[in-house]
């Protein structure tokens, strides 16, 4: 009995205000509060509120047969607390249905695993606490920032007690095999891997409104038909995507909400199919093989690697500089200072510095508040320079 497993990513970074060299040493507040509120308002209006309302409605309509999951970053939750408690409340209402699972991730949506295991664990724990506080759940499935993954990460996360981890379904690791089964990492049966079916996921997330696509327009029944074709050849169809797909990346005019509205009905027309959350998938299905990934991979861009965050020397330099501050910042034992530092670990700051697709001005530019990757780097580094002074001063005072 194959299952459809939805997971939606919800994340907002704390964007930095324009911070030029003249502010260094004088101004220790880095957030662009107006912009963060403005973007949260916009995404709430276009995506979070209407999508949450629709999904809640579907969950109620199908009385437990329609089930979904979210991963909401700590920074996104914090911004909802601060600026839009109504949005937080709408997520809580979803949690209360019992049909919605919340996954575990790093609080600051960071790449901390690569730089500091201590910080990684600290962030994962902070996030668990936040999820428990708002949604009264204890996550058992982990998803790393941007689905960054390899065997080592799986082993480490398994050691933290998780029974499952969310991954991109890499062709290079799967070979001829299908992503539509549960796998486990080599020599590690204790944790199961849920692999994103990137083809079907991207049909919704990226291609849905593309009029040049031969399958346009995509209807719920056509999509359900593709899903049903997997019957007998897979056990879990993992549809993982950014939550903003609904209403923000794919505008309401494209018919995305109507598509979602009809999808459960069309999927459930086939009596063998159901919906499951990630932990239910893990409980239900056996691992059918090894998913062996040595090099770090992610769900980003065509390369599915880390080049979107660490592809150029600016990104690497910025990353090393901010993680280089960890020891000193923690020595201050100043909770506010540590929080300010950790907010600078959010992966988005480094994504803005990517020069990869600069020429095309495509998705990277769409998501960046800066005109150029250089501006992103300079602004970030000026902030880091100020934070370094602040930390230094704090330690001297002690």
């Amino acid at each position, binding site marked *: 009995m194959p299952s459809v497993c939805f997971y939606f990513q919800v994340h907002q970074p704390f964007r930095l205000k324009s911070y*030029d*060299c*003249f502010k*260094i040493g004088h101004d220790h507040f880095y957030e662009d509060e107006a912009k963060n509120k403005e973007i949260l308002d916009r995404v709430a209006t276009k995506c979070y509120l209407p999508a949450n309302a629709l999904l809640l409605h579907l969950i109620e309509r199908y009385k437990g047969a329609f089930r979904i999951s979210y991963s909401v970053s700590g920074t996104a939750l914090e911004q909802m607390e601060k600026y839009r408690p109504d949005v937080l409340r709408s997520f809580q209402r979803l949690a209360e249905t019992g049909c919605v699972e919340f996954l575990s991730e790093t609080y600051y949506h960071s790449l901390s695993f690569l730089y500091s295991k201590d910080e990684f664990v600290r962030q994962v724990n902070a996030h668990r606490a936040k999820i428990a506080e708002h949604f009264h759940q204890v996550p058992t499935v982990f998803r790393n920032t941007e689905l960054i993954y390899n065997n080592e990460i799986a082993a480490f996360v398994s050691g933290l007690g998780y029974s499952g981890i969310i991954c991109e379904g890499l062709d290079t690791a799967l070979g001829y095999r299908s992503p539509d089964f549960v796998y486990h990492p080599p020599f590690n049966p204790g944790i199961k891997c849920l692999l994103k079916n990137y083809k079907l996921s991207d049909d919704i997330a990226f291609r849905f409104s593309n009029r040049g696509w031969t399958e346009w327009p995509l209807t719920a029944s056509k999509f359900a038909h593709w899903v049903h074709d997997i019957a007998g050849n897979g056990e879990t169809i993992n549809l993982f995507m950014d939550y903003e797909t609904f209403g923000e990346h794919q505008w309401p005019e494209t018919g995305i909400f109507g598509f979602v509205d009809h999808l459960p009905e069309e999927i459930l027309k086939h009596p063998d199919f159901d919906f499951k959350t990630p932990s239910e998938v893990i409980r239900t299905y056996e691992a059918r093989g090894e998913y062996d990934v040595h090099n770090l991979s992610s769900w980003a861009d065509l390369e599915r690697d880390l080049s979107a965050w660490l592809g*150029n*020397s*600016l990104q*690497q*330099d*910025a990353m090393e500089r901010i993680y280089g501050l960890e020891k000193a910042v923690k020595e201050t034992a100043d909770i506010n200072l540590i929080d300010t530092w950790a907010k600078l670990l959010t992966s988005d700051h480094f994504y803005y510095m990517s*020069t990869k697709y*600069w020429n095309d001005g495509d998705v990277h530019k769409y998501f960046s508040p800066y005109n150029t990757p*250089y501006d992103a*780097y*300079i602004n970030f*580094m*000026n902030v880091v*320079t100020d934070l370094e002074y602040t930390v230094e001063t704090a330690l001297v005072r002690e």
Partner: protein
Amino acid sequence: MIRVLMLGWEFPPLFSGGLGIATFGIVKALSPKTRIRLIIPTAAALTKLNHVNITGFNHITAEELNFERLQFQFSSLPVETNQLPIRISPYHDINAEIVRTEWNDFQWLQTKKKVEIIHRLFVGTEVYGANIMHKVQLFTQLCEEIGSRNNFDIIHAHDWITFPAGVKIKAKTGKPLILHVHSLETDRAGVDVRNEIYALEKTAMEEADRIIVVSHYTKDQVVEHYQIDPARIVVVHNGIEPALTIRQRHRLNDKLVLFLGRLTHQKGPQFLLETAEKVCRVFPRVKFVVAGTGDQFIPLLETSAYRKLGSKFIFTGFLTKAKVNEALSMADVYFMPSVSEPFGLTALEAAQFGVPGVISSQSGVAEVLRGSLQADFWDTDKFANYIYALLRYKALAKEIAEKAKADLTQLTWGHAAKKILEIYSTLTEN
């Protein structure tokens, strides 16, 4: 092969700015695929290029000109001019007395004497100078005489000093005329200028079959300030001759920010000063090296002293190419705060030397040099922030210098020549 009558003004080794370098680069890249007759006022004996027939009026012979046909009429500039009472153009310093007396009697003189006077006007190292308008008039009429022989397919004229000649030759021969704009009077003297050079540029561009401009920025200027139909304008970005460069360590404890260019209003010296003042506030260990001279030198010197920034500036005066290269090899940042820069070849030179650049958005080079930091010329806060960042964050300086070097591989005179050849063939097809 298309036969091109090319009219130029600056040409190596004689030039004061980018025009000479650009003309040379274009002629050289075109030479294997065209037959070029290049006419310039002053040609050095050493200047030779394969397949290019170069004529310099500084050593023209009596045999090369038909003095019978050559009737000098000094009111014959193809424009109506209204002289403005104030001197707002860098070229406008005209001393009419110098040659006028000789002109009035010119046609009665013996050929030998005539040739002597022509040589005298075009010899020397000052390519513009006080008597520029007379040079232009004489150049126009000499070119017109040579052009009347009609042994070419197309006319290609570089900048305003050669435009009247181009227009005259077109009128006489009916051959298609291309005007190549490297710089406009509105760049040099400000957008509100309406002097005789502006009028000359405007009239000539109205006559031309095609106008080649060195940037989209300049195209916009031509459309906005000269009301020329954009359909006749083609953008051909400049290139740069590949060169091996070195980096040298300087012995100063301070970082060096290099400004390279004429010290005229157009180059933004006041924004250089404002920026320098701001950079010094946040990064005191810095010196601004100002290489070049011009009418803004004294004001800049005085203001920098008045603002107690004297020790932060090193004024070198005009530098030879070898000295410029030395400065580039040591600079930490190249800074070009131009108010209006049609292209800005020096930014490419800096890139060649691996010097990261902070450049004005009001420039043509900003369109092609992604490896650079760009701000509006008046935004000195942003300039200062960029310079600070380049001095402070090594990874940034390195990344930008590398990106700029990658940009240079696309910026060759060969690319420019290819586009120009396309224009030639469209215009000569009919």
